[in-house]
């Protein structure tokens, strides 16, 4: 039985805000293979290519046959809970702030015995499923949940440390003028967000999506122009202490590259909205969010950037756009490192071509806004950090991992 999450309360102005701490983050190089796997929501362990032995903890030499070819393979996460304990005393500040803390030893069907964080409704002898999730230090940890999830499992306080669940939290959606902005607002509402703030730039230019957003319950709209330092600073001075999840869906897509469409104006706009816009948001909202990373059960937890999959490999048909997205992606990684000490995770969602007017000339498959929004919500609920949304983005990720030169040559539209 999971204890249901108490509803969020107004902040006591006289009480000190609990400062963020991080669980131990020391990991060997091979253990960081787990971090990459957890970031995308997989469950994989090393499996010796010679003898098939599954290895855990991670290592460089097979513990059975001494072979050194130990690729990561997706694995059956089931096992049996062999032993459990509830820790009342911890040596590290993160856990000291959070005892009692439940732990278990799981005997995996695949072989290894695994020390894991334990969900509240597990008992010794139970059949459990393991998952790999990123903890607040940004490294992968094992988690055991019952095979059949009980009700309100997402309320489990230990699991909430691993996720960025919108339930009970306040969200800022930066760009309310697109269909994606509307889909995000609706999806966060459905996922239990307690308040949704939505920004819009250039209010004199009407957008049907924004009109629809204004009519949603629990949504407040604000002026926000990410190209205007004053505008971003002003909104941050009002909201930065209240935003628990920030979704940067800034978007300005124009076709063209460098040689045949050398247009400094358009290129400047793309950089101003995608790269400098992120910089302005980071510089004004980042510090307050980071300071509230451990602020109770509904503290600040996530910064989402909706980026193009072409941030990872340039699509010359949208060449300067791709470059501005690449700049944003690099800055997002910088932001990830800077926000980590506060336990705030930066989630980068890479999308393929959207189904909007600027992609009119792009052949399918194209992404609908609801698909993108749903995937973002799921990533927040499950603690994923790098997302490839849609078939095109997934294919780009796969081809880049396999042979970056091949996709550089072949990409075109």
């Amino acid at each position, binding site marked *: 039985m999971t204890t249901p999450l108490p509803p969020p309360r107004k902040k006591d102005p006289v009480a000190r805000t609990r400062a963020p701490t991080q*669980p*131990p*983050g*020391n*990991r*060997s190089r091979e*253990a960081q293979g787990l971090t990459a796997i957890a970031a995308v929501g997989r469950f994989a362990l090393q499996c010796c290519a010679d003898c098939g032995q599954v290895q*855990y*903890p*991670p290592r460089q030499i097979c*513990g059975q046959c001494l072979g050194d070819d130990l690729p990561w393979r997706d694995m059956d996460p089931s096992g049996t809970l*062999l*032993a*459990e*304990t*509830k*820790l*009342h*005393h*911890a*040596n*590290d500040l*993160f*856990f000291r702030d959070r005892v009692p*803390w439940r*732990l*278990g*030893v799981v*005997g995996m069907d695949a072989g290894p*015995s*695994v*020390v*894991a*964080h334990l969900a509240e409704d597990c008992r*010794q*002898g139970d059949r459990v499923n393991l998952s790999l999730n990123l*903890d607040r*230090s940004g*490294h992968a*940890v*094992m988690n055991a949940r019952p095979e059949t999830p009980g009700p309100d499992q997402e309320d489990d306080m230990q699991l909430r440390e691993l996720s960025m669940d919108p339930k009970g939290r306040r969200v800022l959606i930066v760009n309310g003028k697109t269909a994606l902005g509307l889909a995000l607002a609706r999806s966060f509402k459905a996922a239990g967000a307690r308040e949704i703030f939505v920004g819009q730039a250039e209010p004199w230019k009407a957008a049907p999506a924004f009109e629809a957003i204004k009519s949603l319950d629990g949504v407040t709209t604000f002026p926000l122009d990410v190209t205007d330092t004053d505008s971003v600073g002003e909104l941050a001075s009002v909201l930065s202490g209240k935003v628990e999840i920030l979704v940067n869906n800034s978007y300005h897509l124009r076709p063209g590259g460098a040689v045949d469409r050398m247009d400094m104006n358009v290129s400047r706009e793309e950089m101003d909205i995608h790269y400098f816009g992120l910089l302005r948001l980071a510089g004004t909202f980042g510090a307050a969010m980071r300071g509230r990373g451990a602020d109770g059960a509904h503290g600040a937890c996530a910064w989402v950037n909706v980026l193009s999959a072409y941030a990872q490999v340039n699509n010359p048909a949208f060449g300067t756009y791709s470059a501005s997205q690449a700049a944003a992606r690099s800055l997002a990684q910088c932001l990830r490192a800077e926000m980590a000490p506060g336990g705030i995770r930066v989630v980068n969602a890479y999308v393929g071509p959207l189904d909007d007017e600027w992609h009119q000339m792009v052949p399918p498959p194209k992404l609908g806004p609801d698909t993108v929004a749903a995937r973002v919500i799921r990533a927040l609920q499950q603690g994923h950090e790098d997302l490839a949304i849609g078939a095109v983005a997934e294919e780009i990720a796969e081809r880049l991992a396999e042979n970056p030169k091949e996709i550089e040559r072949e990409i075109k539209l």
Partner: protein
Amino acid sequence: MSRMGYDGIVVCVPVTVPYSRYSLRSAHWFCGRALADLIAGAGVAKADVDGFCISSFTLAPDSAVGLTQHLGVSPRWLDHIPMGGASGAVALRRAARAVQCGDADIVACIAGDTNHVDSFRNTIASFSQFANDAVYPYGSGGPNASFAFLTDHYMREFGAAREDFGKLCVAQRDNALSTPHAMMKRPLSLDDYLNARPIADPLRLFDCVMPCAGAEAFLVMSDDRAKSLGLPHATILSTIERHNAYPEDPIQIRAGWAMDVDGFYDHAGVGPQDIDFVQAYDDYPVICFMQIEDLGFCPKGEAASFVREHDLTTAGDFPFNTSGGQLSVGQAGAAGGSLGLVESIRQLTDQCLGKAVDGAHVGLASCFGMINYDRGLCTSAAILGRSTR
């Protein structure tokens, strides 16, 4: 090829550098004071000790090497044993072979550690690669969490109750009351034990040792040399060591002793029924139960009923951790692994600090240590005898 015995090799001069909860002194100081007490107790010059076997968690960044220059010694045989609580009997068997083949004449086996306010936390924060990767990030509970798992599993698997562990702890506390340097000075009742502050379910306060600063040490030499120096000494009947035993066990219910227990007694020419006292490695009660089983005193899983049926005090029918063990004396880092050996030498040479076991002729000291990931990897043990010469 059958193993050689230890005829003509003896252990003597049991030394304890008194324990303190915290100390500003370094591990070098504790090891150095132990050496000073050893040579004083033996009546030899520092230079006569030509071999050293050192164990310590807090000597870093030094090993035994740094200690040679710090203490001004020039040994012709040097070993550093990183096996934590298993180091004692391992040091003994290393040193015995060195003396036996003439590589050294007098070997000092010293285990010593300091305890600053952050020593324990620093030690467990980077204990091993597997612990860094796969244990410490989970609650940073240290050995308490690891042994909580083993205790939880053991209790359910074999039906042991907290009262059974409690009986062992109460008996050891009784034994400790006559040990001058024991950290725990008050009698412990079963009620105290059962209702103590929870640490990591099912472990409570008195299931856990108190980390402290201190040292334990002894000398290994030929029996001729011991006699010429006029030193009371004990003989070495048998030793074993084993590492990473039973890796296929999903969770630890037994350890290395069980693999070599038959040869252990054969080599000594005695059986479990001949053992007059047992000094077991007692960082947690559950490991004591495993040692009672794995060293042949009862079948696997029956240590609880064994403990219920026996009296573990020094005057009882199964004298166990007669100085009080680590649970009552304290765990001075790696010295915890030599505490039992040093107490065994005292009991067999009539140099007890506390109560003596009546008519003790043969004693068993067992050592265990190094939770590298999810189980203690290192085990060792020695059977010592009263010298008849």
